C-alpha cells in the first residue's frame, strides 16, 4: 500500500447554488508529483482551494498529512505549502526580506539565501518582486511556499503564461523539490507538462474526476479502446486522452 498524504473523499463545493466541485475523490501518495488537469471551469482551482482550507466545503472530507481540513484548518495551513494562481507579495521588501517575514509567520528562522538558491534566484536576493520576470516570480512564489519546509506543496497553474524555456526550468525545480522527499500537487493546462512531470494525474471535467492514473496508463487505456490518430507518430499521447475525455469544444473562462 502506498503512503497516502492527501485523501479527498466525495468533495463537493457550491457557489450560490452553482456546483463547482461535484463528488471529487483523490488520493495523492507521498513523494509523488500529482497533476490535476481539466478545461477552464472544471473545478481544479476550487478543489485546490478547498484542500488549502481557503474555502469551506459543502460535502465530503479532506485529510491532509493526517489532519482533517474541515475541523482543523489552522493545522493544515501549517503543514502545507501553497502557491496560488496569482500569488502576490509586498512590493517594497526584497526577496530575502519577504522570505524572512514569511518564515517568522510560521515561527521559523529561515535562511533566505538557501531557499532562493533552491529555486535558482540566489543572485536576486536584494531585488523586489516587481523586478522579476514571469518565470522568476513563479519560482519565487515556490520558495515562499517552502519557508516552513512543508511535506506537501500545492501549485496552481505554476507554468501558465511562461515561455517553454521558463516552463522547463520550473519543471527542474519541481523535480528537485520532490527528490527532497516532498509531495507536489499541481494543476496545469499543458498535457505535455503533465506527461513529462507527473507520476499520476487526475482529469477533471464539470466538477468531477473523469480519470485518475499515470499518464502512460491513461494513454494505454485509450489505445486499447481502439483509438487511432490520423497521422501516427506515436499511437497517442496524453493530449488525445484529455480531449477524448473532455471534448474538443473551446472553453471560455
Amino acid at each position, binding site marked *: 500500500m502506498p503512503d497516502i498524504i492527501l485523501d479527498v473523499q466525495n468533495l463537493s463545493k457550491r457557489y450560490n447554488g452553482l456546483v463547482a466541485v461535484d463528488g471529487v475523490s483523490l488520493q495523492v501518495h507521498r513523494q509523488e508529483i500529482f497533476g490535476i488537469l481539466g478545461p477552464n471551469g472544471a473545478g481544479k482551482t476550487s478543489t485546490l482551494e478547498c484542500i488549502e482550507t481557503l474555502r469551506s466545503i459543502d460535502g465530503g472530507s479532506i485529510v491532509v498529512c493526517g489532519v482533517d481540513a474541515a475541523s482543523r484548518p*489552522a493545522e493544515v*495551513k501549517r503543514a502545507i505549502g501553497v502557491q496560488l494562481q496569482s500569488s502576490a507579495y*509586498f512590493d517594497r521588501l526584497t526577496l530575502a*526580506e519577504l522570505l524572512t517575514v514569511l518564515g517568522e509567520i510560521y515561527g521559523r528562522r529561515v535562511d533566505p539565501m538557501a531557499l532562493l538558491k533552491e529555486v535558482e534566484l540566489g543572485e536576486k536576493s536584494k531585488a523586489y518582486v516587481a523586478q522579476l520576470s514571469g518565470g522568476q516570480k513563479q519560482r519565487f512564489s515556490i520558495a515562499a511556499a517552502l519557508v516552513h519546509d512543508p511535506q506537501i506543496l500545492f501549485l496552481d497553474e505554476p507554468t501558465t503564461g511562461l515561455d517553454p524555456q521558463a516552463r522547463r526550468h520550473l519543471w527542474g525545480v519541481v523535480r528537485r523539490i520532490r527528490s527532497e522527499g516532498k509531495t507536489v500537487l499541481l494543476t496545469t493546462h499543458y498535457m505535455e507538462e503533465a506527461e513529462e512531470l507527473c507520476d499520476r494525474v487526475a482529469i477533471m471535467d464539470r466538477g468531477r474526476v473523469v480519470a485518475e492514473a499515470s499518464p502512460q496508463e491513461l494513454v494505454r487505456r485509450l489505445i486499447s479502446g481502439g483509438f487511432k490518430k490520423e497521422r501516427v507518430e506515436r499511437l497517442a499521447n496524453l493530449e488525445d486522452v484529455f480531449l477524448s475525455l473532455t471534448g474538443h469544444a473551446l472553453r471560455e473562462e
Partner: protein
Amino acid sequence: MMRLKTVLTIASLKMFIRQKEAILWTLVLPLFIVFLFGVVSFDGLGTLHVGLVNESAESVEELEAALRTVEALEVSVGGRDEEMAELGRGERDLVVVLEDSPAGSPHGRIRAFGDPEAKPREVQIAALAVQRIFDDRLIESHEIAERILLHVEPVHTRNLRYIDFLIPGVISMSIMQMGIFGVAFGFVSLKKRGILRTLSVTPLKASDFILAQVITRVSVLMLQMGLMVGVGILFLDLRFVGNLFLMALLCLLGAIVFLAIGFALAGIARSEDQVAPLANLISVPMLLLSGVFFSRSNLPEALRAVTEVFPLTFLADGMREVAIEGATIAGVFPQILGLGLWCALAVVAAVKLFRWE
C-alpha cells in the same frame, strides 16, 4: 509571539520608508503647508496699510511722520494712480489724498478711499487713526491748553499669531489623513492586488498584521508631530508651551479613531475608485469645519454646534490647548473624553466592516 509582531512591524516600517510618495505626503506636505501659511500672514487685523498721496503745494513730511508714530499703521507715500492701483489690488486698506488748493482757497480737499465692503474693520480703524492724527494737529495749531491726553494702560494679552494656531491644526489634519487615506487606500490596494489573499494561505493572524500596520503609522505620526513642533520652534517662532507626552496621548487617541475609520472604509470599498469618494465625504467637511486652518468662531451658530462633536474638532482643539496654552490633562479632559468615545465607536465599526478579502 512578541517576535513575530516585532518582525512584522519592522517590515512594515521598512515598506513605509521605501515608499517615496508616502514620505512626501506625510512628512513634507504638512511642513510645506505650515511654511506657506506661515509666510502668508492671516493674522486677522495686523498692520493697516495706508497710502498717502500729496497733490498740494505744502510739505506732508510732518503729517507722514505723525502717521508713522501709530504702531498699527504702515504708511506709503506715492502718486494717486499708483496708490489707487495698490488699493485695488488689496495692498492698501486706506488711501488718503491731499488735493491741491483751488484758486482763492487756503486748503485743498482731503479725501480718503477704501473698500468698506471688503475690509469693514480695516477701513474703519485706519480712518479713525488718520482722523485722530488730523485732530491732534488741529488742536496743536490752535494751542488749546486743556488738552485731554489719552493714557494707554498696558494690558497683558495672549497675542497669539496665526502660526501658533495653525501648527497644532496641521498636526491634527495629518493624523486624520494618514488614518483615513493611508489605511483605506493601502488596504484596498493590498486586497485588490491579491497580497492579502496570498497571506491568507499562511497561519498569519489578521490581528497581528493589523497591529503592525497600526504601530507603523502611529510611529510615523509621532515622528511627524515632533518634526512639526521642532520646525515650528526653530524657524517659525512657534510659541510652544505644551507637554509632549500629553500631545502624544492625543495623537495616539486621534490615530486610533482615524485608523479605525480607515479600516472600516477598506472593508466597505472594493477598489480605490470606491475609497476616494467615501474618504473625501468624511474628511473634507472636517478639514474645512473642524478649525484646522481657521477658527470655528466665524461659523454660523447651528453649524458650529454640529462641528463641536467632530473627532477632528476634539483632536485639533485638544492639540491647540496643550501646545500653545499649556493645558494639563484636566484641561483637555473634554477632548480626551470625546476622542475616547469616537475611538470606541470607530473601532466597533472597523471590526464589523473590515474584511480580510
